[in-house]
């Protein structure tokens, strides 16, 4: 069997061109490995000692790049809006069968603990690994557990909308208060003593914003999983 007859020349040349491109890319990437150069975050690490919180990643996300995080929240909101518009929640088409008794009891028992853990991750986001995004996703996973275990469980739509609206509006309000009081959007207008770094009440506006982000992410993710679970199963 002749291989040239089975595989077209265009395919072979395409493979050869891809191989050349891949090898070039690998060579470039390996030649410019960042081994001992000046790092991007060195200046921010130094700046964090003067006006930051203990978790430097939190300071970067919420304070140095706070406006970017506001845009990210807006993207998440638009995605949640799109999912809600696409998948109209159909209350008649829930899960058909009642789930196991053990699953129901265990999820009822576990849900408060998951909620508490999510709130802990959210509130201590400026001191330890974690933060608003992670805590919000943990809360949404608890809601998902209840959705798959209880047939008639549903987070009321008004509750999700209320949390989401309050969180989004208060983020922008905090930003504008910084603009009014300190001439910078999202400025740290709450008095924050840098000697308190590592305490729960420290960092001024930074933990407040991350808790707001957590509430917004939690409500939006809960809405997304609820819309995806309650799709109609016909067709």
């Amino acid at each position, binding site marked *: 069997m002749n291989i040239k007859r089975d595989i077209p020349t265009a395919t072979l040349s395409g493979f050869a061109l891809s191989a050349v491109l891949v090898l070039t890319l690998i060579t470039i990437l390996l030649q410019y490995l960042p081994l001992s150069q000046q790092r991007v*975050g060195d200046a921010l690490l130094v700046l964090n000692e003067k006006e930051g919180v203990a978790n430097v990643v939190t300071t970067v996300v919420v304070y140095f790049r706070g406006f970017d995080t506001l845009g990210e929240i807006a993207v998440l909101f638009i995605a949640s809006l799109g999912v809600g518009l696409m998948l109209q929640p159909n209350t008649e088409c829930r899960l058909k069968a009642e789930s196991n008794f053990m699953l129901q009891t265990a999820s009822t028992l576990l849900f408060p603990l998951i909620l508490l853990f999510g709130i802990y991750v959210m509130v201590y986001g400026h001191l330890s690994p974690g933060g608003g995004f992670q805590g919000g996703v943990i809360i949404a996973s608890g809601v998902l557990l209840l959705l798959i275990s209880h047939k008639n469980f549903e987070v009321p739509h008004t509750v999700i909308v209320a949390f989401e609206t309050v969180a989004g509006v208060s983020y922008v309000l905090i930003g504008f208060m910084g603009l009014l009081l300190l001439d910078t959007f999202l400025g740290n207008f709450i008095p924050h003593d840098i000697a308190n770094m590592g305490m729960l009440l420290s960092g001024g506006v930074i933990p407040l914003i991350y808790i707001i982000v957590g509430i917004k992410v939690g409500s939006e993710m809960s809405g997304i999983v609820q819309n995806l679970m309650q799709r109609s199963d016909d067709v």
Partner: protein
Amino acid sequence: MFEFLNQPEVIKTIVTLGAMSLFFVGLFGLLTRKHIVKVFISIAIMESAIFLLFIGLSFNREKVAPIIDATQTQVATMNDPIPQAMILTAIVIGMAVLALGVSFAIEYYKLTGKTEIDTMNEMRF
């Protein structure tokens, strides 16, 4: 026996090659699979390759996490916080895009009953 693996050059070369392999696995799936959900899964695989590349290249074994506490107060011994913050942003955006795409796919399937991207020709004149 495997001490040479601890050198930063070796670690970063392995990270680069592994991330590129994962990226091309995702690219192969994106180009060859016809099912729309598999296409979204391939995009997610490519995204995770980029996350691994960023985090792996900025990671240094001898340095600690960028969290100041009672024992770690020197910023010179900390890892770079910028790539971690960027990847935190990128993960959230990737999740949002994936959820929106899957919901589009579900609604399209409910309307037309099609899942193969070859047969999606409603917009063709």
